[in-house]
């Protein structure tokens, strides 16, 4: 005879299997893809779509007054915690750095301001029952080009 606790566990297992069968997983968000679509719609040309720079999603897009395309990288917020990431990325990409996070623009990599913004967004998200952690978008404007607000 199956013990009572065994029956309860079997019921829970059946519930889990049913949830798994009927659960339709939403497609993983692709912030780089969404940005590319938005920039294309605004008339920009995507010069160098790519999956990754050392596994980091990124692309490049043309801007009317710039001779070279603007390189764009999307970082997971936690990834930038390493103090060595920004100097490394800046050394590779060059140009003038611009940071876009959660709709706010920064003309330099201000770690403290970014963390403050993340904390505020987290608290607001908790209050509204919706926690989202947008990527840190880093743009590298080529020499001779003035950074603008593109997003």
């Amino acid at each position, binding site marked *: 005879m199956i*013990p*009572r*606790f*065994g029956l*309860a*566990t079997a019921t*829970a*297992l059946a*519930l*889990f299997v049913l*949830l*798994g069968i009927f*659960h339709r*997983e*939403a497609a993983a968000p692709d912030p780089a893809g969404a940005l590319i679509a938005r920039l294309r719609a605004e008339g920009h040309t995507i010069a160098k779509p790519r999956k990754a720079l*050392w*596994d*980091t999603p990124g692309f490049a897009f043309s801007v009317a007054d710039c001779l070279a395309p603007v390189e764009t990288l999307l970082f*997971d917020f*936690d*990834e*930038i*915690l*390493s*103090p*060595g*990431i*920004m*100097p*490394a*990325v800046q*050394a*590779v990409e060059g140009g003038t750095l611009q940071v876009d996070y959660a709709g706010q623009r920064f003309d330099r990599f201000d770690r403290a301001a970014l963390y403050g913004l993340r904390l505020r967004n987290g608290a607001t998200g908790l209050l509204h029952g919706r926690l989202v952690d947008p990527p840190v978008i880093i743009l590298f404007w080529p020499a001779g080009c003035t950074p603008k607000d593109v997003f």
Partner: protein
Amino acid sequence: MRERVPLPQFCLYLLALLAVQYWAGTVALVVRSPNLDTLERTLTQISILPVIEWFMLFGFIRRLPHRTIPVTLAYGSLALVVVAFTLINHQRFAFLFESFALFLLWLRLPDLRRVGLVLLLIALQRGQGMTPLHALVSWVDTRVLTSVMGLIGQPVTWIGNLVLSQGMPDGLVILAGCASSNLMLPMGLGLLILLLVSRERLTRADYGWVALTLAVAVAINIGRLYLMLGSHAAYQSWHEGTGASIVSVAGLVVTMGVWMIATHPKRPPGRRKLSREAGA
């Protein structure tokens, strides 16, 4: 309803449910593979160490004493697991959350405390939410790698986490995904789990074995990063190709090897036990 539930029965059923939850994602990936290439990629990504750990954990609960636990605790634990089903979109976080909650819930019961701890370690081993740790360790790794290369006379320069060498003049940036902690977590926690399920109590020597395993994990990863700097082809291989598989297998071999040496019946007992015997 009976007032108490037999402990081995409770552990067997609840852990079977948790094991299904733990492996469900992997099974779904295998079953839903659209083609043979995807299936092959999925199968090669399955880690063997957790399979061994679960197997050992089930062996451990078979040896639990034939006591009983309060019915409220048994059904409360089951209810907690069922509540975590609602987080089906975030299975890994669900498992981490419920393992932590069960660990706290079982902390006061000596028979269940170790089962809860092993479950929590299994959950932590997956590295969910550990990107900040990996990011910080990647910075340390860069310093260690460049220092080692400097010591052996290899020309190397670095800017932050960017390492420039003769093989990779355009450089290699060490991101969180390449940090040694990605190997330290499965190896160190894996050994701790194996020791917890095969020992009455941990000795001081056991912590030494764990520290040694962590050091070997760092050495393996630094070696891998060094090889990645050889050329673009070497980078591809050691990052996600055959080389990466070799690193995984080496991690498994070291962890299992250290566990076998540490628990070998012919090994003299730990220092603490020796001194206790000498005192007696």
